[in-house]
């Protein structure tokens, strides 16, 4: 009986794809389309895992794919939050002020502007915004594993369909 391949390699690849797409400027626009970048990471992990399985008798299972997608999502969610946190700390400029100047062209509700100014004050006081850091880590830890899992499920169903042919 064939031994189950190590899932660490596909998880590393998937995490790398997810994190790179999420942190690179311009490329991270992909995530604005139904979190496609995160789904691509899950898909990449499953693709690498399927490559590892070729030559063995082991069939690509949805549960393995989903596990890879979720783990890639958790790791990537933490890495992206950490990267954003470090970026906030080393940045000399207040990113909220920059965002506010960018948003001048768009009509933003006054409540949002009040919140933005609150975050801006936090930046000026601590050098980073604790509220943004905590909320973004929490959101990332839900959204990245969720869409990573969706990407992995899509990957497994597509690869299995191709393998059946």
């Amino acid at each position, binding site marked *: 009986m064939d031994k189950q391949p190590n899932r660490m390699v596909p998880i590393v690849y998937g995490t790398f794809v997810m994190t790179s797409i999420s942190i690179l400027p311009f490329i991270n626009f992909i995530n*604005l389309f139904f979190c496609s970048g995160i789904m691509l990471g899950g898909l990449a992990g499953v693709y690498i895992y399927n490559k590892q399985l070729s030559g063995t008798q082991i069939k690509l*299972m949805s549960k393995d794919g989903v596990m890879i997608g979720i783990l890639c999502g958790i790791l990537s969610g933490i890495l992206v939050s950490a990267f954003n946190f470090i970026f906030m700390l080393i940045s000399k400029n207040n990113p909220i002020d920059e965002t506010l100047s960018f948003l001048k062209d*768009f009509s933003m*509700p006054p409540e949002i502007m009040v919140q933005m100014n609150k975050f801006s004050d936090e930046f000026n006081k601590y050098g980073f915004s604790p509220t943004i850091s905590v909320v973004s880590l929490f959101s990332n830890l839900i959204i990245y594993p969720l869409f990573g899992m969706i990407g992995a499920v899509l990957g*497994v169903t597509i690869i299995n369909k191709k393998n059946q042919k």
Partner: protein
Amino acid sequence: MTGKRIYLIFLSITLLWNVFIVFAPILHNSFGILKTISDFSYTFYSVTCHQIDNRSFHIVGEKYAVCSRCLSIYWSFLFSVIIYPFIKGLNNTKLPSLWLLLIPGLLLFLDAVLDLFGIINNTFISRSITGALIGFILPFYLIPGFYNLFNELFIYFESYKTVKDKK
């Protein structure tokens, strides 16, 4: 695990995801915990969407928690999940042709990229249609995938339980 249960889990998650998109603007002018839910919903969906005001649909004077394109994706996704059992049944594991996924994906990509480079400006209608197309088609690939997943997990836990009982 029965197809009905798996379908209901999938439908519940989709409904929950859509409910907060609508709750965000409706609860925006309320107070206390309701206001917190609204604020949190806006922040939560900001990870997946730009939420630009003039690119979003509005209700009760407030924008939804996501832009018009994302709203079309999620609502048509929900609609597709609701009608899925009537089209494919609850135990289906067969996928449609991959072209049915690639063509709406390509249309959505073109709509965004052509606008980004200023070649053809997209509109509320083009964003909504391209978003709705991809949202409608996705459950036809995801539900069979989740059906397989839950069944594999169920078999795995059953065999684990049997081994444990024998010991």
